[in-house]
């Protein structure tokens, strides 16, 4: 071993070939998107008179007006929080599907605080809403993880059950404690004006929540990749037995990640309510935000930045398809979901070009071995 520059000996290689995993992933993704678009186009041919324009609308429509892209920005934030919550849980190997229920029940907390005259400060009031939802979310998310870590109770089943239970409890709370008579369905009183979150840059509907999301995402990225906690999560996510052997307390870790995920759900829920609603109507059935979050986290490979990008991408697509539906009323509104589904399935496919890459690796492997 030469003492000069040891680190280069073990450092990563960067080469411009499909054997380079990063580059390969990018190419794969591009091809997946192309195929997805091709399939979408075929479907559009069946239902639209002007399929080329329709496809163009889906892809570019959101850019045609600032308000469109503003709508994407406004709606993707809470969605991204759901993805981040799932990402944190998955990263540590958990299978807690409780985000759905937490989103719903923290909504009641937000509505309660937002509709009560706790403060008149337009800065403090939303912050109190956030804190309340984060606190309750963090605490309630613990239950499935606690039962799993302590008693080995099936986490998935427990969290699924709790989602439905929380939905019922939320409706009960809203009805009993914060209902208003105005609306026919069970919904909260209007939030006070001080609780609503305003825009920092109205044309693009950028609010403080956007900045919150960026901060949280970077924070999570650093946490997952640079801190001891993130390291513990990686260990437990890949091999829980090894994590235990290494002295990572599975119990503490799963509680910690559950709390973080719950807090993120609380943030998402608060963001959604205070930017997109002015009173809270608890969902009559589960709306699936928890599952959407899981989708995002898988699309983003549990990487916070990837998750946020995926969230934006999906909301962008939804907006594009919604614009198409608006301009071409003959297209059924369900086209939004169908396009989304196709693209998600194809993007998640790993095996595009696998043969080609294997051949390349084989060649390079033999060359190297010969040396």
């Amino acid at each position, binding site marked *: 071993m030469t003492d000069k520059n040891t680190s280069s000996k073990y450092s990563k290689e960067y080469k411009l070939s499909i054997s380079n995993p990063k580059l390969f992933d990018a190419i794969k993704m591009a091809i997946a998107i192309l195929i997805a678009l091709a399939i979408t186009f075929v479907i559009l041919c069946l239902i639209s008179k002007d399929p080329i324009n329709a496809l163009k609308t889906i892809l570019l429509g959101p850019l045609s007006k600032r308000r469109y892209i503003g709508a994407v920005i406004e709606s993707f934030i809470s969605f991204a929080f759901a993805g981040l919550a799932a990402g944190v849980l998955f990263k540590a190997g958990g299978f807690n599907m409780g985000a759905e229920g937490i989103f719903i029940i923290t909504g009641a907390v937000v509505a309660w605080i937002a509709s009560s005259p706790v403060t008149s400060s337009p800065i403090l009031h939303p912050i109190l809403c956030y804190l309340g939802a984060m606190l309750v979310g963090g605490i309630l998310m613990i239950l499935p993880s606690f039962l799993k870590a302590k008693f080995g109770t099936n986490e998935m089943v427990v969290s699924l059950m709790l989602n439905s239970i929380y939905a019922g409890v939320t409706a009960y709370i809203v009805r009993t404690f914060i209902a208003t008579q105005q609306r026919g*369905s069970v919904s909260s009183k209007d939030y006070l004006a001080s609780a609503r979150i305003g825009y920092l840059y109205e044309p693009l509907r950028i609010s403080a929540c956007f900045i919150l999301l960026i901060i949280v995402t970077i924070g999570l990225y650093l946490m997952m990749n640079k801190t001891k906690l993130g390291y513990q999560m990686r260990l437990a996510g890949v091999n829980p037995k090894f994590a235990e052997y290494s002295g990572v307390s599975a119990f503490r870790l799963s509680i910690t990640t559950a709390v973080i995920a719950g807090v993120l759900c609380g943030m998402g829920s608060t963001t959604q309510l205070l930017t997109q609603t002015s009173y809270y109507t608890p969902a009559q059935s589960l709306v699936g935000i928890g599952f959407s979050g899981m989708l995002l986290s898988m699309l983003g490979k549990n990487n916070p930045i990837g998750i946020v990008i995926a969230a934006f991408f999906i909301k962008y697509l939804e907006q594009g398809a919604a614009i198409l539906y608006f301009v071409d009323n003959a297209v059924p509104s369900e086209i939004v979901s169908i396009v989304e589904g196709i693209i998600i399935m194809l993007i998640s496919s790993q095996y595009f070009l696998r043969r080609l890459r294997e051949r390349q690796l084989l060649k390079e492997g033999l060359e190297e071995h010969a040396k």
Partner: protein
Amino acid sequence: KKEETPAADTPAETTPAAEDDGVTKVAVLIPHRGDQSYFDTIAGAADEVNAADNNITVDVFECDPNGEKAEANWMNWFDNVCEDHQYDLVVCGNGDYEDFLYKACEKYPDQLFFNYDYDYIPESGIPANCYSTKCNTAELGYLVGALSASITKTGTVGVVVGMDTQSMNQFISGYCQILTANDVKYVVSYPGSFSDTALGKEVTDAMIAKGADVIWQVAGGLGNGVIDACSAHDDVWCIGVDQDQYMQFKDTNPEWANTILTSALKNTGVPLKAFIQMVADGNYQDKLGKAEMWGIALDGVGLAENDFYMANTDEATRAKLAEVLASVVNGEVKVIDCLTDWNADEYAAQWPTLLAGNRVE
């Protein structure tokens, strides 16, 4: 009978904004089709208007297929239909969405709006560029109660209500009122869903087991389960809701149709079509800023009096019903309306008593 609310201010002189090319363009925003309830009624009315030869086009937009009720999404849709002044009239409604509608009214003061089903009147009154109507379901329930009372053989009837909400309970406040008054027992069930048909069926079965022989459903898609359960018993009548459900199933599923004596029609399409016509004719001004209840008298609600109903009810029953109808129309009877009569506190205090009336648990 009309309940008129004075407009907040003198109505602004609002003219249809779109180019006057002789075609009246209407946009209808509903969350989605297929609720088998009044959104379908609205969409159906829109389709009828389109089909008629009248120089009116109605575009129906499904704005919220997942029922997320996000305000931002709805406001986007209002922006979509309002910002370019493409439409002479923008229609939306339902307690869940009317707040958004009123906000849009404020944002687009030059645009004409119509609320086909209001739950409340804002403190500031109905906006001056909007007309709001409501079909009086309390009266409807009263009528159904009267019919149920007069045809039950067992002395027990029942109703399946999808969700326990104030606007759903509006349907049954008159129902409970008249049944209690007539000393007829009734079962009320809240399965807590508008889609779980299996639950609807079993809930109804349980009602039948308690002796109910006339069962009304106010439960959207779940109501299909109610109809199915009733159809299995020769001596049990079902009463449909919103649309004429006998006609809906007559050709395709006679077994079901033959159990549906009549349906409680919530004719949301009636005020909608009426107002569209007024806009087309240009004589809508005096409606602006108003909220009006469309009750039995205005055909806003009523029972479906199809051939099957005629064939299966006797003269006496129909006469009795006409009497009840008259007493409601001429104000002899005050039908209790749990939604519009009571504020939150009153509702909390009085609804349980009204519901408990002659209820069988």
